[in-house]
């Protein structure tokens, strides 16, 4: 019985190789759902897409949707002086960042909700402390209303999933976007096991045709 249990556990093991997660317990042909209401244009049905955005990152680079063309990216909302939740989430995002080190198709987008305090130099300092490359992880600020509008767009997951928070906040939820601006998954960024699941989801999207 013990042996069977051990074997069962093993089939769910996430192999610790950079860039690749294998032996995931989910069906390999599983497709991640598309969040949001599809729009119908005549006979065409298009899945919900993230609207256009334009923000400034820690290097004063203008970051828009085209920054993430052909990339899968992870989104969160935070602020630099957040004392409790945000540091935990950043730790988990760092795990994701390191897992996909060297993979140019995976990027990270952290929006500050404290646009008054989190200026470009503050974000630069924050990013430097985390020792992450601004090519792959963008910490952005901008017009406060624009940031909140984007939060509404990404948090479309909350409307469809009872496990997601009811409103946008710095609760630590991470949202996963595919290469075509579709919202495909989310997880609790303070929960390492849930973040493990997002690692598998990222791989699913990278392998998607």
């Amino acid at each position, binding site marked *: 019985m013990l042996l069977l249990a051990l074997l069962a556990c093993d089939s769910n093991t996430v192999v610790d190789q950079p860039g690749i997660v294998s032996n995931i317990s989910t069906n390999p042909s599983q497709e991640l759902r598309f969040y949001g209401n599809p729009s119908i244009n005549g006979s065409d049905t298009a899945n919900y897409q993230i609207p256009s955005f334009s923000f400034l990152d820690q290097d004063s680079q203008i970051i828009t949707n085209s920054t993430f063309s052909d990339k899968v990216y992870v989104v969160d909302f935070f*602020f630099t*002086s*957040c*004392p*409790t939740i945000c540091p935990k989430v950043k730790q988990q995002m760092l795990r994701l960042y390191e897992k996909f080190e060297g993979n140019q198709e995976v990027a990270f987008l952290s929006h500050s*909700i*404290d646009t*008054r*305090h989190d200026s470009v130099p503050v974000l630069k300092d924050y990013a430097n402390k985390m020792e992450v490359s601004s090519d792959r992880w963008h910490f952005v600020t901008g017009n*406060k*209303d624009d940031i*909140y*509008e984007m*939060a*509404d767009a990404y*948090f479309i997951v909350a409307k469809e999933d009872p496990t997601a*928070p*009811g*409103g*946008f*906040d*710095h*609760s630590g939820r991470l949202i996963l976007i595919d290469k075509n601006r579709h919202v495909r998954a989310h997880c609790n960024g303070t929960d390492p096991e849930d973040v493990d699941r997002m690692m598998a989801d990222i791989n699913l999207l990278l392998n998607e045709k």
Partner: protein
Amino acid sequence: ITPYMYYRNLPIFLLLVLLYACQANESNNQHQSAEEENSGHVIAITKDPRIDRAKLYEEVMNIHDEVMPKMSDINRIKRQLRGMTEAEPPLKEEQIKKAKEQIKALDDASEAMMSWMREFKQPAPEVPQKEAMALLVEEKGKISKVSEMMLQSIKDGQELITELKKDK
């Protein structure tokens, strides 16, 4: 009952009375110290100061957690009001003035929350109990006021939107 039985049980009886008296006295002291240390703010007191501190911190965070999601509601109402002030046909001057005042109130409420979050620090374990508890009581008061401000601004904002829509 024989005198022998009485004398045999007396020590036990006295011990029990003594123990009860000690316990009652201790809990009275604790209750008094809670009242004294926190200026009448009655909070649960256990024998473990770390639990008391953790519970009070949790109370503070619960108030924050309940209203934090409403930051997006505040922003949405604000954007809606702003849209109404810019729409055609234009609103009356007095209506635009009301809308702008409410937009400011919503902004102020949202900034009050951001400001509280920026400043709030959980007392470090080495901070003495009396000081830590007083700090947390103060923070609970502050975040309660922020919460009130946020909820009021949402309520007033929604009412104004309804009023402005009716007048069209």
